[in-house]
């Protein structure tokens, strides 16, 4: 694909992409470490194996750009600049969490970083992102919206409704489909007549690209074009990133033990680990050496350990909070 060829990406950004991917990977691995203690009482949908996508897209985004994610949202939130501590405190049900303990792992929010909340209903966030893009256009700003969703969401009617509307109105939105080939445990071939989701863009008269979802630089280059189209008022882009989740649909375990997916399929994809491949690429191109990656990883680990400690030390909500924040109460004088 020509857009992926000869990237001229500043070194600082190439390093930032690595940092983001390592942050996402280590964040999820921390959850795997602490989860067996059973005091993180929220269903976790881990992003391990798919990190290149969030990194390659979010590194282009400004603070005022909006993202809508899914139940598998940790990576997107971190890549958009959210504090690991606010996420982890939320996962522990603490009042110090981003949703004051009301949302858990599936609904992170951080309006200051353009995360206006997260839907765990498959496809739900797609229309919301289109709406945020509509607001950006009506307010005459050049900010944009990105919606991340899985291949399962493209089975939903709301996928069609949203792409149709966004194309018609030429809205600044990027549809990023993370095709990991499974909707929970249903394989794509059991649900869709062909495996090319990008092709569907043609039906809406918007560009659609299919790309290796483990190739962070390819995604970076493609997302750059999609962002430019959005900011210049040229309308939406559909990007299908083909990838694989290493863990089960939910929880810290691999699901091949339960017979959900073939073990050799997982092993093939682990061979194509996006973090490992990119690290090797950077080393081979003399942009970084193994020792520096190790140092970067330990810096991230330290940050995450502190975030974890602080999250665990946070207070639980008061019981009276059960009844708070059901309704917004206007403070406007009128």
């Amino acid at each position, binding site marked *: 694909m020509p857009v992926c060829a000869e990237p001229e990406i500043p070194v600082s950004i190439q390093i930032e992409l690595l940092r983001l991917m390592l942050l996402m990977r280590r964040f999820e691995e921390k959850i795997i470490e602490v989860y067996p203690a059973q005091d993180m009482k929220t269903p976790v949908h881990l992003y391990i194996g798919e990190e290149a996508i969030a990194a390659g897209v979010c590194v282009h985004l400004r603070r005022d750009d909006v993202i809508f994610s899914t139940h598998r949202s940790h990576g997107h939130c971190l890549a958009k600049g959210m504090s690991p501590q606010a996420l982890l405190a939320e996962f522990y049900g603490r009042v110090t969490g981003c949703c004051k303990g009301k949302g858990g792992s599936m609904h992170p929010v951080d309006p200051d970083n353009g995360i206006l909340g997260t839907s765990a209903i498959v496809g739900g966030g*797609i229309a919301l992102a289109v709406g945020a893009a509509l607001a950006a256009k009506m307010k005459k700003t050049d900010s944009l919206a990105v919606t991340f969703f899985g291949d399962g969401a493209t089975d939903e009617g709301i996928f069609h409704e949203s792409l149709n509307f966004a194309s018609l109105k030429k809205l600044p939105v990027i549809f990023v489909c993370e095709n990991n080939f499974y909707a929970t445990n249903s394989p794509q071939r059991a649900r869709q007549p062909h495996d090319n989701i990008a092709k569907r863009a043609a039906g809406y008269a918007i560009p659609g690209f299919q790309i290796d979802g483990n190739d962070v630089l390819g995604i970076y280059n493609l997302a750059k074009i999609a962002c430019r189209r959005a900011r210049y008022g040229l309308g939406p882009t559909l990007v299908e990133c083909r990838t694989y989740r290493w863990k089960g649909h939910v929880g810290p375990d691999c699901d091949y033990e339960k017979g959900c997916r073939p073990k050799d399929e997982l092993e093939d994809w682990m061979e194509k680990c996006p973090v490992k491949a990119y690290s090797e690429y950077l080393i081979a191109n003399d942009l970084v050496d193994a020792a520096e990656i190790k140092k970067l990883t330990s810096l991230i680990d330290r940050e995450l350990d502190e975030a974890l400690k602080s999250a665990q030390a946070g207070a639980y909500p008061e019981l009276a909070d059960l009844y708070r924040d059901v309704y917004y109460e206007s403070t406007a004088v009128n």
Partner: protein
Amino acid sequence: MHEGHEEKKKAMPWTKVCIDKNEFEAGLGREGLRGISYREAIREAQRQMMEKDERVFILGEGVDDPGGIFGTTSGLGERFGQERVMDVAIAENGITGVAIGAAMAGMKPVFVHMRMDFLPMCMDQIFNHAAKWYYMTGGAVNVPIVIRSIIGRGWGSAAQHSQALHALFTHIPGLKVAIPSTPYDAKGLLIGALEDGNPVMFVEHRWVYDYVGYVPEEIYKIPLGKGVIRKPGRDITIVAISQMVYEAMKAAKVLAAEGIDVEVIDPRSLKPLDEELIFESVKKTGHLLIADVACKTGGVGAEIACRVCESVLEYLKAPVARVNFPDVPTPCSPVLEEAFYPSSTDIINSIKRVINHGRSKESTSQHYYACAQ
């Protein structure tokens, strides 16, 4: 701001119910008060709020049609342009999501549906997204959206173009439900809904669109959750919803001639519900009837009856009664339609049964027979 005056028990211009322009002109019109129809009141509220607040915009299938959603959006497209009066595809759930996303990002959309029957197409976005968002995000992001929908009736509209589904929405925490019956309330509540900051289901009734009433020209707001006494009375409380307010007023007039003094309460919002107003009334009258424009089972009447039983049971002198649609889909044939829709006569008959409860064995058994129907 007229709202403060509504506390008074005396019927004020803004609580008065007029069926048609003649009745208005013979009364309030002669006092020099401005009278406009329910449809004009809704149009005026939208126009004034769009002029006042550039975040407000309207979207819906046909909002810029010549028909203008029964005239409630007529002329607004010309006035504000297609960007703010936006015709959209018949893609109810997706467009609801788009409106919600826009609301999260700082806009104030009014999404209009020509029939309430189309709302089941939007349930995922209304129930799972709009209603949940403020709570789920710990109060970080609110969803200021108004979803207008219209209850149809008559001309053989049948089962998919005449449903009244307001009770479903009262069941969901996070949603508010407004259901105005008069032009004054239609304007004030729509402005109240637009300034509320929460997702508000705004339920209109097609049969009241032509009704004329006093509506001030300026912007005024009726906060959600405040009911109003349409007519004070001593003997029985009728909580009348939407178009049933008019049937209840007719019934009250007939019963007054027979010496039964009916108090008519219009809750105006079903969530939040002005239960104190209802409780105070029941404490006075000891009798309660709820007249709704919807099917009975699981309806708003059940909720109101239960709350009265939970809080002021000792004041009740007779079982609570309800006037509703029967628990069947709306039929088409005019003969069946006639039998389907309750009228002031049904209210009168129910009231008599409630008032006469316990006075004779016969009437009691008749009452229970009626309840069992």
